[in-house]
């Protein structure tokens, strides 16, 4: 079994920052696993701008933001295994992974950093009844189809949920020639960033229906429409307020859930309500030497914050490893344990 000082799982903004920070803090043998062909994680499909305002004081697209870190990783001696899926981790910090070139591999590490990101809540998870035809997408998979594969997902769409992904997709669809009939939000206020409400909906005249939800989906083979209704304060549809919106696509953008299946299998604790990994102020989980950062811990509104947290995890992991080597502890970078952007 090959041994490394540090294994980082996930090559999105959290994992990239963590690996680089650990490298800069004297950790020499680092391996980073990424399941996609490219590093960068979900940033690669976020072609809109707005990244980097806090960290770099400039407005970058997702791929541009990612590139700043990917470039540094490329120039370093960090071993990057892309197109590689981690299958299992264990509390003694061994990692089982697989790819087509190397096959099945098992490596050991002195410390692990989990930067596994999040997944989208689906229409099934929120129990929208109705038919199950083609044309119902999570906002992120619609974004991938459009931005990475280059396909339109429908001619007339309804978006459920006013989170940032939903808002950004409303603008994206409009710019690519699809009509967005409405963004429907069950809460009485939009849940995404205010700047996105203005730049993605208001600027394009897309209606935002607050305190409304989709109560059923209609269509045998391809979606033909959604039925919506106003909801009361307990999120229950109010009788008599139903209406039908004809559309051939429904984008569901109803929240993100930290993706921690690897950690759960290894018996690492998560918060029951948020599904985020439980970490201490140094981003260590309840398994010694296993750290976590980014959306696997909690859902962040900005990639910049994810980067900051990734750095903290990288630095903590480095100090853990160096400690074990019997060297002196590093100067703490964040005196109060909080992770704020410099």
């Amino acid at each position, binding site marked *: 079994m090959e041994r490394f000082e540090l294994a980082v799982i996930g090559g999105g903004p959290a994992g990239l920052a963590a690996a680089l920070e650990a490298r800069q803090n004297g950790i020499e043998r680092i391996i980073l696993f990424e399941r996609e062909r490219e590093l960068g994680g979900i940033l690669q499909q976020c072609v809109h701008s707005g990244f980097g305002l806090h960290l770099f004081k400039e407005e970058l697209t997702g791929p541009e933001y990612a590139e700043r870190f990917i470039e540094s990783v490329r120039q370093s001696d960090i071993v990057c295994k892309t197109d590689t899926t981690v299958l299992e981790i264990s509390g003694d910090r061994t990692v089982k992974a697989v790819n087509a070139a190397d096959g099945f591999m098992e490596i050991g590490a002195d410390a692990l950093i989990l930067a596994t990101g999040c997944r989208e809540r689906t229409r099934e998870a929120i*129990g929208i009844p109705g038919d199950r035809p083609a044309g119902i997408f*999570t906002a992120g998979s619609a974004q991938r189809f459009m931005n990475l594969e280059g396909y339109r997902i429908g001619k007339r769409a309804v978006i459920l949920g006013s989170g940032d992904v939903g808002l950004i997709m409303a603008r994206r669809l409009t710019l690519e020639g699809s009509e967005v009939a409405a963004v429907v939000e069950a809460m009485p206020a939009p849940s995404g960033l205010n700047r996105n409400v203005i730049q993605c909906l208001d600027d394009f005249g897309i209606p935002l229906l607050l305190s409304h939800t989709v109560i059923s989906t209609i269509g045998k083979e391809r979606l033909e429409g959604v039925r919506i209704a106003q909801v009361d304060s307990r999120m229950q549809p109010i009788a008599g307020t139903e209406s039908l919106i004809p559309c051939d696509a429904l984008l569901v953008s109803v929240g993100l859930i930290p993706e921690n299946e690897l950690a759960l299998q290894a018996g690492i604790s998560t918060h029951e309500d948020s599904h985020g990994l439980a970490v201490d102020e140094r981003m260590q989980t309840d398994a010694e030497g296993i750290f976590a950062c980014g959306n696997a811990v909690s859902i962040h509104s900005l990639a910049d914050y994810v980067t900051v947290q990734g750095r903290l995890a990288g630095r903590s992991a480095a100090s853990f490893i160096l400690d074990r080597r019997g060297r002196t502890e590093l100067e703490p970078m964040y005196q109060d344990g909080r992770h704020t952007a410099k």
Partner: protein
Amino acid sequence: MYDIVIIGAGIVGTAVARELSKYQLRIAVLERNNEIAGGATKANSGIIYNGHTARAEKLKGRLTLRGRQMFEELCRELDVAFKPVDMLIAGFDEEDDAAIEELRRRAETNGIAGIRVLSREEALRREPFLNDGVRSALLNPGCGIVDPWEVCFALAENAAANGVEFRLNTGVTGLAPLQGGIEVETAGGTLQARAVINCAGINTDLINRMAGSESFSILPKRGQYAVLDRSARFQISHIVAHCKSEKEKSVFLIPTLHGNVMIGPSMEGTEDRTSKKTTAGQMQKLMKSAHKISSRIPEHQVIRSFAGLKAKCSAGDFLIRESEVMSGLIHAAGINNPGLTCSPAIAAHIADMVASMFSRMGLALERNPVFNPQRERLVSFKDIPDGERNEWIRRHPGYGRIVCRCEQVTEGEIRESISREPGACSVNGVKHRTRAGMGRCQGGFCGPKVTSLLSEELDRRMEQVLFENNGSELLSDSMP
């Protein structure tokens, strides 16, 4: 001229096709959908019953007992996973005690070995998630769990390997008598066959009408199900139900082959033969029924709900007989629960009917000398032991690329599922054959990858790839 045309490629049609492929016959299976197993077969509980409630005076009862005896051997031949699981039928009040005793008596009459009534303590020890108020439970050993569509795919693949032709997207539009046979009109042209076997599920009565008879009708029932996440902190080791009264049927809590718990079905009559929609009302009813068994079911960990249409027949029993108006036509109608369990027995029963029909025509059924009863399952990366994975990936590099992260399905499996005969033709076809998209993200991550693999393997443009049936294109067009 075909010897046999089978209408419908669900569990009954494919079981009949595979059974008849043991003989030297020219056989075609016509399926109106773009995928096999697309009707009631895929919206099924997956329970193999042991016939504890079977009634010997009914054909359904006799075929259940026979089907159960045949099922495991069939699964062995077709390399299909079969998990023996005991059934636990719980009672919560005095009335239930009587119902359980009645069930026990009937099971004993049916010769079910090992059936017994458990005390409250023993029931709770076996199934700690049962509600505290449980009084007693009937332990019914000798049931089992399968993936119903997997059985159907396996039957179809084995039938095809033994010479049966499968024609998809080929709905039957008319039947006409011929000298020594039947003319079958379809969307894709006309076929002639000596015998036609009507395995059209909820549309068997429409086929009967095409033959000129209204001797039975199908009363579709919509059954809804909910599936819990594998990682839900709710696991069971039995198929669990509340003992049912005549008025109120209980849902089952079913431990699937893959570690999920499935709940269902809730049943309602419906006029609409095409709608497989789920409804908020029935889902509430389903959960209410399930909570009678265990109030600890984590409703928020439902990852999928779905509905299917079951073909209840006006005759009140399975209706398997020759048509009274068209010679050469055999109906297999009204195959509702436990049709999956019965399917091998139904197929054997129909083969006997075909043999006697052919002998009346002066024809004999000759054994197919090259019939191969074996079929091999799709190798699943997840099931390969760690030590053998590298060797497998070296020979099949696609198995080193995980496409569906939730269920750990590789590119190799997906390509293989598409290239089989009959293989997956759509995203849902891939899902049912490989489990890609069946996990907690419901295809959010793997959907785009599965779509491009289908595009490559079927040599179709991305925007021509189907979600399931014709008209279900996933993408509208490519961007300039």
